């Protein structure tokens, strides 16, 4: 495919149909074969589209610095310039970095002491393993994944409807990471968990991935809206797993990448059989399980229904008899309904009887004879046994697919649902493979198309999957990826700063690493490259201001989740309850004013629940928790490969004046009083240890002690009558704690 270099030509390509009247689509003949033939060898030779070949590990002069091959690749580039990597970070700094990076929580005093006691490089390797084995690891890294899969718990738009039980997808991710589900399996589960031979509740819940996007339940144009949903799945999947911007080819061939409009619709055809469980405008959840599990549950429900029907017929008969005897204590309305012969009851009577089932049973209870009592008890026993034998399946939020009415997929002229072009068959982008996967291989209940796609993506031979994933992991450890455009590995994406290293890592990950994320983390974190300090070098900076050669540890602010979780951990208030429905953090009532349903939009604040880790915070598209939003939470509508970092005044207002931080400052101060006693120096020292994992310098200690003394005095003067319940010393200490939570060092670990 020839990509235009001149602007003029490019505009001609992009708007060839401009002169047409809107609504009048021109006759377009689209030759799909010719479209595929546009892809040239040149296109296939783009570095990221070629099969990964493991490069040799380079020889370097200072081989003592090389703890593993990563270091050799980094050092080689530095030595070519005659540069040296920054010195190693001091143990305390490295420990804090590792804890925050892997778990999103600072080390406790005990954990800090362990680091201080033994700071051999090998000890840190053990620490890494320990942290990877902690449950906090999954909570921290699941959030990175949720960013790229546009996770939210409502649909957006007018009603902003709930996505019922979608949190089970979030829990699935946390568990999968903690269990170190191999990444190729992780792909299969999310893209085709319902189509696997090993399908079960867990893997079906994983396919909730497809259904996380926004959804307009009152669309202006249903066909267009359906297509937007498919586009959302395609856009997310192509960026998340393949790092390509295929969504740009909806209306025309991609202008700069070797991706055709045909490629786009081939991929759409893979997702097109998915249907949305809905009742009117309401989005529905479903029991999650394999076909067999669902059948079992249905069979069980049938048997339970039979027993219930027996129970009901006994109870109803006895209740009726009591009515006739005049001993019934039931309401007149129920009595009237029961007296009507079953065949003659209107729908209201039937509903009433059904809804008063328990009352009727209670009334009947005193009129049962022994035989009836026996029968009831046996039926109830049987139901209990059935439920034990076949427990309820968890409910999940996912699309369904069946082999009935599989829709045809048309290429859409100019991307408009109203102008279908030729029918296309499922497939993957031509430039990425010379042999298309077999998409004509249905399972016994689905088309098998997603499974074919998943197998192709998760195969060792896919050129992009491992590269894209390894780059994401690198990015979260180093602040930026080896490819700085983590969702775009195409020709328009950024070139890798260390192409050989990326390929080496990708190959290692698939082969030695066996797709294990934990092994990959351990490898990266054992490198000296990771363990460098952030020491500045003016002459290097002049030549390489963006630190492309990785001559030092890059600086990056913690994400809002790690900031909030750290505050809770330091104040001692963190609630480590894992999993389950989301919690609702405090939202100032002022922030609800802008909502159309301001009265009922956000449940009442429950502090203990809200003190759970931030990943369990409810993500409502029309009301993002202000604390999270202002501190650069990702966009929840589209895949976000990297958080934006801004420093603006509303953040300072939130962190300095907001209720959350000030409340935690109070808890923190109480904790200091309890754990350090009355002495200012001891309190301040403990505060620094807990919050910053180091002792204060002499100057810091002096400044803080002076502040405590003068502010205590002031607080005492301001409350001369001693009306306040708290002591002036405590109130001054709260101010110290408030300041500590706001320190740059708190949000920017070295």
């Amino acid at each position, binding site marked *: 495919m020839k990509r235009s270099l001149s602007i003029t030509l490019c505009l001609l390509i992009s708007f060839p149909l401009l002169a047409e009247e809107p609504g009048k689509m021109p006759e377009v003949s689209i030759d799909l074969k010719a479209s595929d033939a546009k892809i040239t060898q040149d296109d296939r030779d783009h570095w990221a589209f070629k099969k990964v070949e493991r490069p040799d590990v380079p020889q370097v002069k200072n081989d003592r610095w090389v703890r593993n091959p990563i270091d050799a690749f980094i050092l080689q580039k530095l030595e070519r310039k005659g540069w040296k990597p920054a010195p190693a970070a001091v143990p305390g700094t490295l420990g804090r970095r590792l804890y925050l990076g892997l778990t999103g929580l600072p080390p406790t005093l005990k954990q800090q002491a362990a680091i201080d006691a033994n700071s051999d490089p090998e000890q840190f390797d053990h620490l890494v393993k320990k942290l990877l084995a902690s449950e906090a690891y999954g909570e921290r890294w699941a959030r990175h994944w949720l960013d790229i899969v546009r996770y939210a718990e409502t649909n957006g738009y007018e009603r902003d409807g709930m996505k019922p039980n979608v949190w089970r997808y979030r829990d699935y991710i946390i568990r999968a990471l903690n269990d170190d589900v191999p990444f190729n399996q992780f792909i299969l589960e999310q893209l085709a968990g319902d189509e696997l031979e090993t399908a079960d509740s867990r893997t079906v819940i994983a396919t909730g991935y497809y259904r996380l996007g926004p959804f307009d339940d009152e669309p202006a144009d249903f066909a267009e809206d359906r297509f937007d949903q498919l586009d959302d799945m395609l*856009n997310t999947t192509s960026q998340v797993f393949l790092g390509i911007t295929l969504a740009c080819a909806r209306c025309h061939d991609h202008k700069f990448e070797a991706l055709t409009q045909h490629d786009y619709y081939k991929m759409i055809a893979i997702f097109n059989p998915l249907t949305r469980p809905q009742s009117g405008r309401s989005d529905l959840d479903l029991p999650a399980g394999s076909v067999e599990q669902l059948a079992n549950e249905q069979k069980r429900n049938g048997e339970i229904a039979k027993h219930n029907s027996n129970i009901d017929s006994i109870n109803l008969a006895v209740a009726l008899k009591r009515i006739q005897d005049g001993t019934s204590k039931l309401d007149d309305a129920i009595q009237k309904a029961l007296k009507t012969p079953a065949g003659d009851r209107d729908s209201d009577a039937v509903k009433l009887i059904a809804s008063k089932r328990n009352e009727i049973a209670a009334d009947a209870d005193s009129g049962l004879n022994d035989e009836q009592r026996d029968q009831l008890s046996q039926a109830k026993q049987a139901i209990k046994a059935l439920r034990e034998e076949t427990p309820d399946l968890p409910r999940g939020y996912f699309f369904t697919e069946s082999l009935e009415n599989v829709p045809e997929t048309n290429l859409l002229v100019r991307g408009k649902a109203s102008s279908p072009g030729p029918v296309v068959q499922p497939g993957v982008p031509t430039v990425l493979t010379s042999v298309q996967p077999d998409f004509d291989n249905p399972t016994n209940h689905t088309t098998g198309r997603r499974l074919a796609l998943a197998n192709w993506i998760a195969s060792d031979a896919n050129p992009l999957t491992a590269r894209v994933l390894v780059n994401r992991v690198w990015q979260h450890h180093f602040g930026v990826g080896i490819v700085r455009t983590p969702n775009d590995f195409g020709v328009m*994406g950024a070139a890798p700063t260390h192409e050989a290293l990326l390929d080496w890592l990708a190959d290692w990950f698939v082969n030695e690493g066996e797709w294990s994320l934990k092994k990959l983390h351990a490898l990266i974190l054992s490198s000296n490259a990771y363990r460098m300090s952030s020491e500045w070098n003016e002459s290097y900076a002049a030549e390489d201001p963006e630190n492309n050669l990785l001559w030092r540890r890059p600086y990056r602010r913690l994400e809002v989740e790690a900031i909030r979780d750290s505050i809770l951990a330091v104040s001692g208030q963190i609630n480590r309850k894992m999993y389950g429905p989301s919690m609702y953090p405090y939202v100032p009532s002022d922030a609800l004013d*802008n909502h159309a*349903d301001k009265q009922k939009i956000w449940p009442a604040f429950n502090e203990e629940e809200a003190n759970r880790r931030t990943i369990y915070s409810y993500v409502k598209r029309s009301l993002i928790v202000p604390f999270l939003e202002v501190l650069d939470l990702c966009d929840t509508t589209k895949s976000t490969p990297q958080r934006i970092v801004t*420093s603006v005044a509303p953040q300072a207002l939130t962190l300095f004046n907001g209720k959350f931080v000030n409340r935690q400052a109070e808890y923190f101060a109480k904790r200091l009083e309890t754990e350090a006693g009355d002495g200012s120096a001891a309190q301040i020292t403990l505060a620094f240890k807990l919050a910053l994992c180091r002792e204060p310098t002499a100057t810091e200690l002096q400044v803080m002690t002076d502040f405590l003394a003068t502010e205590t005095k002031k607080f005492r003067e301001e409350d001369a009558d001693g009306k306040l319940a708290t002591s002036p010393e405590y109130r001054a200490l709260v101010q110290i704690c408030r300041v500590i939570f706001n320190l740059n060092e708190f949000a920017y670990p070295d």
Partner: protein
Amino acid sequence: MNRFMSPNQTPCRNSRREFLWETGAGFTGLAMLDLLSRDGFFDKLRAEDKEGLSGLLAPKKPHFEAKASRCVFFFMNGGPSQIDTFDPKPVLDKHHGEEYKGELEVGSNGRAIGYLMKSPFKFQKHGESGLEISDLYPHLSTHADDLCLFRSCYTDTAAHASGCIQMNTGKVGIGSPSIGSWVNYGLGTISQDLPGYVVMTDPRGGPIGSASNWSSGYIPAAYQGTMFRSSGTPLLNMENPKGVTDRGQRKSLDLLGALNQQHRRTRKFESELEARIESYELAYRMQVAAKDVVDLSQESAKTHERYGLNDKITADFGRKCLITKRLLESGVRFIQLYSGGGHIEDTWDGHTDCITNHKLHAGETDKPMAALMQDMKDIGLWDETLFVWGGEFGRTPTSEGIGKPGRDHNWHAFTMWLAGGGVKGGQAIGASDDLGFGIADRPVHVSDFHATILHLMGLDHNLLSFYYQGLDQRLTGPDEAHIVEEALA
């Protein structure tokens, strides 16, 4: 040229600088600006960038000279009826009570179509231009010669959520930056003590779709609209924490500043740290400035009267308009005022009784808007200010049943207006059909309207772009949008 603009303007291009934007590596002002300027991507840093903190929000030059440098958007939430306000339909009067037999499908969700219903409001010619406006607007009509009516607007959706979102972001789907965000992205903020993009909602609630309407979408959150309350504490977290005096607040800030400076001494090249230190000082100034803006006791009794603050019908919107005047004077770039909030009759969504509904909502807003416009003329900010009026769509010429004076949504044709800097007033552009249902002449799509607003503020809608997900994204989308040239003075 705006320094965040692409040097060439193909819609799908990319550059190293843009990926920095995309990956978030460049959002903290000085640091990356400095690096990039050394790298030759940007013009030399201007003095204000070095003094002020944030290259993100620093004032930027427009693409070309334009009169308007700030914008007030009166958003009539719920969809005001063009037939009852700015678009007289004498032919409709003649067919009052007849069944509608045209081809246009009627609004939303299978509502009763009813019969053609004339407007009960009287239209009169106003000013030298003789522009026809209904008697819902006795005050606003004194500015008739300044209004540029667009009587042939159309949009792509009949639903409130997607309609509001399209009118604000150009797209019917959520997740794109709103026009106020684009304007601030393109021009930066003038006032460094106040947010550049202020939103004031109705006391009855926000618009459907809530924050999606003033979201910054995929561009940095620094550009998103800031909710501003018209009384008490206008911004979230603006008050000192309980028990902390102004003196104590300052002391704690000083301690924070001292410790942060100490920390920075060994990290002096980390300019993100400097930006964050500055943000606390800016927040402190903002606390003072924002409180000052909503303190209307400084305004004269006469002013209170002119804005309708003494009448409970107009008091709320009047307060907002008077605060808007003060925000404009302080240099706030983009202000959006919502009339109507919550659902149905609490907004302009007159399904049950459009007549009573519009009397209420027009009555609440007419006098305050007129007073604000007059003040802008009097204090010499008229030419620098662009006024925008309208909702997410209009309303049908049909009622929702016989004898039921409700009107349904009409996205086929409705009226918006512009006034102020660079606008040619005293005219109506385009025309709806005889019934006011479809378009008879000169269709103006929402994107054309947006392109015109940007143009009036010195921004080229084709150049104002942000590279995201493989595309140079624009407010007006990938399809061509056209400036409505007739509207330009």
